[in-house]
């Protein structure tokens, strides 16, 4: 028996991916402007499908190194708009990394902020992590804005630390400690559905 995690916010249901989400995820996952900032490169449909299958198996955090990936589903119409992942990187120091992707058509409505905020609540309240960090490319201004808006601090700015497609890359690291996180009131319920 397993338990699948579901978070609800004002406008979103955050839940683990199901097989039927494949087409929705592929529609944003393989877009160049999304790909640019993803760690897992998917150049074609088959690679994107592999990435989706991996995310679909990321259902719980039981040991360090594991990832929990929740799809970002709009309550209003069930649209799968993106996903948020939480990777448990270090048990003794209670560290976790947050990642997210949202389809370009659903940007600028605060959905991503709502989703990431709920996953941070989960990370600090449920998983009792001590610190959450996020890594973005130096030119990904939208992500940097979002992370700052969540109260995260810029802890690192690596300049020209790697080559990406022939250009020097910059990398930003944002982080926030548990005691600095302002718990949001946005999670209405933390439901665990039993699945046979």
């Amino acid at each position, binding site marked *: 028996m397993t338990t699948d995690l579901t978070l609800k916010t004002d406008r979103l249901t955050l839940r683990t991916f199901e097989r039927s989400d494949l087409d929705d995820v592929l529609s944003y996952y393989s877009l160049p402007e999304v790909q640019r900032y993803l760690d897992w490169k998917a150049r074609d449909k088959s690679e994107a499908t592999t990435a989706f299958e991996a995310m679909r198996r990321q259902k719980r955090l039981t040991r360090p190194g594991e990832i929990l990936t929740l799809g970002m589903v709009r309550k209003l119409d069930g649209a799968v708009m993106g996903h948020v992942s939480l990777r448990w990187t270090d048990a003794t*120091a209670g560290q976790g990394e947050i990642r997210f992707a949202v389809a370009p058509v659903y940007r600028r409505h605060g959905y991503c902020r709502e989703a990431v905020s709920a996953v941070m609540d989960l990370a600090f309240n449920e998983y009792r992590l001590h*610190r959450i960090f996020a890594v973005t490319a130096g030119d990904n201004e939208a992500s940097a804005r979002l992370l700052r808006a969540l109260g995260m601090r810029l*802890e*690192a700015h690596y*300049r*020209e630390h*790697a*080559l990406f497609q022939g250009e020097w890359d910059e990398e930003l690291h944002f*982080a926030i400690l548990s005691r600095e996180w302002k718990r949001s009131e946005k999670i209405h319920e933390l439901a665990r559905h039993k699945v046979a």
Partner: protein
Amino acid sequence: MASAEEYALAMNTQVPLPATVQFAPDYPIVTERLALRPFSRGDVDAVYSYRSREDVSEYLFDQPMTHEECAEAVRARAGQIAFSNEGDKIVLAVERRDDARLIGEVSLIWRSVSDLQGEIGYIFHPDAHGHGYASEASRALLAFGFEVMGLHRVYARCDALNGGSERVMQRLGMRKEAHFREHAQFKGRWDEELIYAILEGEWFAPATSR
């Protein structure tokens, strides 16, 4: 004191290197007051004199080392003198030229071949702190990294509480790129880490304070 050229010639130690080696300094690397050379068996006591100390190990991953551990470290370091592959590291003994005393060690790691990245590190005997030896020796490794290996960026790390080490990085013209807060547990407390870096373009820029 002999000129750097005379000193280098007199102390020159040709070491046979494997054919896979891509970069290896000519030893010793001679600076104004110092000579950087491979470690050898006779260095164990000198290494023990600083690596056995609590105040030296405080900000290092290692605990204070026993004489036997120092002997092992010296044996390992004697072979860390050239770069063949990514991840290779050179660790050199730093000797004061005027009294031939071994006062510390410096290292350069080839972190990424494709991205042209390197990392430097340094450990000095507390008796020898405060004279600019660490920056003088590290500067010689930065010169090798940028001018011979063609690195694009070299970084260094230290504990946020290690002000002496941070000042060395600043003196080298490195910029603070990171301050990680409580990102790990270190010897029973929260660890804070600083990363400083310098780019090729900054190294070759007209000298300012360097």
